[in-house]
């Protein structure tokens, strides 16, 4: 094996070790993330907070505006979809009946406020 081959192998070895370290052992920390990247349980809890606030004032416009927080780039912004996702998550993960009712109430209010929020069935 020539010196050049050995030199190349050690570069490759160092590269692999460093990539493993940088991706797995100590990945870069995120400090300025967008809410679109929030984990599903945090997104669902945010919607639940919205539903709690909605229950107090019944102001749908305000709720719709607050849903913009969860909107992600390149994705059609639809509060009804966010509320439905939160409701599905809550149902699967043992949210209390009271919380599920709050989410349902908000979901219905969103649909009444703007019927175009309803997802169109795929053919």
């Amino acid at each position, binding site marked *: 094996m020539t010196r050049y081959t050995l*030199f190349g192998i*050690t*570069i490759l070895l160092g590269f692999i070790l460093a990539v493993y370290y*940088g991706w797995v052992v100590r990945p*870069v920390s995120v400090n300025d993330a967008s*809410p679109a990247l929030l984990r599903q349980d945090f997104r669902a809890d945010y919607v639940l907070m919205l539903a709690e606030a909605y229950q107090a004032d019944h102001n749908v416009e305000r709720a719709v505006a607050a849903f913009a927080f969860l909107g992600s780039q390149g994705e059609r912004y639809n509060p009804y979809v966010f509320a439905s996702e939160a409701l599905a998550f809550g149902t699967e993960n043992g949210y209390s009946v009271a919380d599920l009712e709050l989410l349902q109430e908000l979901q219905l209010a969103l649909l009444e406020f703007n019927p175009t929020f309803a997802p169109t069935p795929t053919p």
Partner: protein
Amino acid sequence: MIREPQQKPPFFLLTGLVLGLVLGLIVAWMIWPPRVNEVSPANLAEPYQEQYRLMVALAYAASSDLGRAQARLALLGDSDPVRALSSQAQVALASNATQREARALAGLAEELGAYLASQEATAQAVNTPNPADQSGATPIESVGEGAAYFLDDQQLTCESVDAPPYLKIFIFDANHNPQAGVALTLSSEEGEAQFTTGQRPEMSPGYAEYPLTPGIAYSLSIQGVQILTGLQASACETEEGEAAWGSWLLLFNAEE
């Protein structure tokens, strides 16, 4: 005479490794960092954190569930959540359009601040010695069946303000000699601690000690048989008249 060429250490291998490491870290951290798909509220940019905090306050204003609000605020990782809420409330207060938000933020800050202060006061009351409070003054002898030892004497010793409360036990055999290796168990709501006499032979082979936590009631067993219950750290006054935690000094003798 022919000189053999001197063997050089393979520095090029080390150079290659270092070069590979540097390139790898540049790729992993700067050029192609791992894609982050799931973050927590603590990882959000500051304006989004403010929006999240506001939503916690609005939800609290509607539900009055302080425990839930506190848990949600903890996700933001603020070192002082009350201060963060108050600062944001002040900013919101400056604008007419956000009075409702300001009220919600200030309301939660006030409630949370009062709750945390009461928690702190309770903890302080439990941890501050008060000689007037003699509720845990005397341990209750509660000898279980088959006890091989009996309580011969008990004293509350008051050493200094800085000394933590201790349980200090001396055990003597039937011939009144200090007895090492006697198994002791101190039970409380926090769990069970097992220790034996003789771990500080400079004191006495029959000596054992254990630190007590103020506000916790303990029961003591010797060789698996309960001897005392209601054992608590008790407050006392030092010779200088200062309030301190006293140490219980218990002397046990073996049954003859």
